[in-house]
């Protein structure tokens, strides 16, 4: 399935993704950005690229047409002859705490959900918390409390706590989605949380 098909299926299941558009050329991207509203991010969509940032395939916080045009050209240059399906124009996510919410089907226990702080922290500190599906809201609270970084979510250093209700709803939705579509593995990574809610920046899954 293509990225757009994946995203559409997620939306069909009630996941609220950041507004996006798969642009085929620069003019297309400009039109989409105008419609979505600046600032936006551009991301390469290519079957030959797994980690987009590693090849310079992502440009963020593009505030106007000029920045977008330059970014588009840079990304196409960095693609360096790889097959490009298009460039994803996406609304910039809110600022906040980046979480990774993963899921997989364990051979013995079936579907399970894994929560962790996004980015490099998952790798270095192994700071993750897991539960077997289906979950109830209190399970999600316990998962959060188990993370070493949980003070960050509770509003450390004068920041407001993240919206727990949004996190609960998202995790429970993911459990339902994995069961209904028989998902083998999935990642919402990152999902950015603040006190009002969350933005799903990227998502992938396999069956």
């Amino acid at each position, binding site marked *: 399935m293509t990225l757009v098909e994946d995203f559409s299926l997620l939306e069909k299941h009630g996941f609220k993704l950041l507004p996006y558009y798969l642009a085929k050329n620069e003019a297309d991207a400009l039109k989409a950005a105008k419609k979505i509203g600046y600032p936006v991010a551009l991301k390469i969509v290519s079957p030959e690229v797994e980690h987009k940032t590693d090849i310079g395939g992502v440009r963020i916080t593009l505030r106007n047409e000029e920045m977008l045009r330059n970014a588009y050209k840079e990304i196409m240059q960095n693609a360096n002859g790889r097959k490009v399906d298009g460039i994803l124009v996406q609304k910039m996510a809110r600022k906040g705490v980046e979480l*990774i919410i*993963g*899921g*997989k089907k*364990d*051979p*013995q*226990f*079936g579907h*399970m959900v*894994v929560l*962790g702080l996004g980015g*490099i922290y*998952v*790798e270095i500190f*192994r700071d*993750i918390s*897991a*539960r*077997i599906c289906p979950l109830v809201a209190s*399970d999600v609270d*316990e998962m959060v409390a*188990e993370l070493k970084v949980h003070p960050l979510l509770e509003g450390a250093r004068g920041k407001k706590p993240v919206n727990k209700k949004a996190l609960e709803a998202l995790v429970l939705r993911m459990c339902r989605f994995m069961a209904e579509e028989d998902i083998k*593995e*999935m*990642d919402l*990574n990152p999902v950015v949380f603040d006190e009002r809610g969350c933005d799903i920046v990227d998502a992938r899954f396999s069956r």
Partner: protein
Amino acid sequence: MKRMIKNLGRVFEPKSVAIVGASATPNKIGNVLVRNFLDTKFPGAVYPVNPKYPELFGLKCYAKVSDIPGKVDCVIVATPAETVPGVMRDCADKKVGGVVILSGGFEEVNRNDLAQKLREIAEASNIPVVGPNCLGVFNPYTKVDSIFLPMYKLERPKAGSIAFVTQSGAVGSTVVDLMAYYGVGLSKFISYGNGTILDESDYLEYLMQDEKTKTIILYLEGVKDGRKLLAAMKKVNKVKPIIALKAGKGAGGQAAARSHTGNIAGSYLAYNAAFKQAKVAEADGIDEVFDFVKIFNQPKPKGNRMGVITNGGGMGVLTADYIESEGLALAQFSEETKKELAEILPAYGTVANPLDLVADAGVEAYEKAIGVMMKDPNIDGLIVIILTQTPPIDERIIHVLTKVLDAQTKPIATISVGGTYTEVYRKILESKGVPSYSSPRAAVKAMERLVVYSKYCRQLGKK
């Protein structure tokens, strides 16, 4: 399956036992088995089964189980794997209570065909089967004992309230030996090996109903049906606390270093999640199993506020550190407690938590301090450090502590750190059922598990 679980009663409380593969050759499994039954003076009938002998150890020996006149409750099988389906069919014809198959040579060596035959016969006849490829069962109350290790080499624990369900025979036997050594009382021992017919979840269900069992130790390597285990743990742990030990964490641990979820979620992560979801206390190693077992016989605390008593300041500080890092709290004494404690202390002592009775403290000071803290509503549990090396501490402390236990109001964990002399003290305390620890960390960690489990039980009560 329900009927099979219920029928397990005839395996654990048999009036008659048949031993298939009974042998006259010393050190053979079939020899040790019969000997053990005779040595422990098993009160029921013992029937050796082996077509080779007319009699064995002065008992009539039968060619097959169906030749035995009268009812047979429990059959223990120790013959080669190929012969076992035949024995099972004979047992089904005889309508025996249950079968314990010690023999290996089934799934673990890819003989799924043999395992499937056992399953078919068991399911058709509703005969519960323990094993194969295991040490089987031991019930110190009825003396049924299929652990084929000589009694002088592997001591059997006294009768008590701890049940132990284990996949591995090796871990199983060593834990049983340690239980005897530490004086921990056992209710049922179940080594289920391949778990071909009844698995760990079925045994948990059985033990939930077992009157003698109050706490369950569960040793796992891997399970076939994780969802069934999670459901069983959730159901049983509400009634009786389960302490779980999981082996084979390695692959999951390595995979956790990878950021992609498919790799993070190595299979140990799923077990760990299941234990957490069922609120099962997961122990990190055999020593921790015993640390937890000791404390779970204590009354359930109403909160996490600990009163600490010590006769050595430094050990109190170390304990306070762990109380903080493990998520417990140091209690704030009530005014009345403060007043009463001040009277116990020498003039140069100060009332604080941890309460330092100082090295001059004798057994009387401990008795009074424990009494005061036991009635303070601001204190949920006690951690009592006894440095036995100080001159005024003598064996009367054992009497004081056992008296506290008899009152059964708040949980108490004791800590005594030291060498040979101290360890003798600890062993006596443990044999009296007083939770005794050789390090502050072990004591506090165990208390924390009891606090977590108690909180869970309170929440269940409210729902």
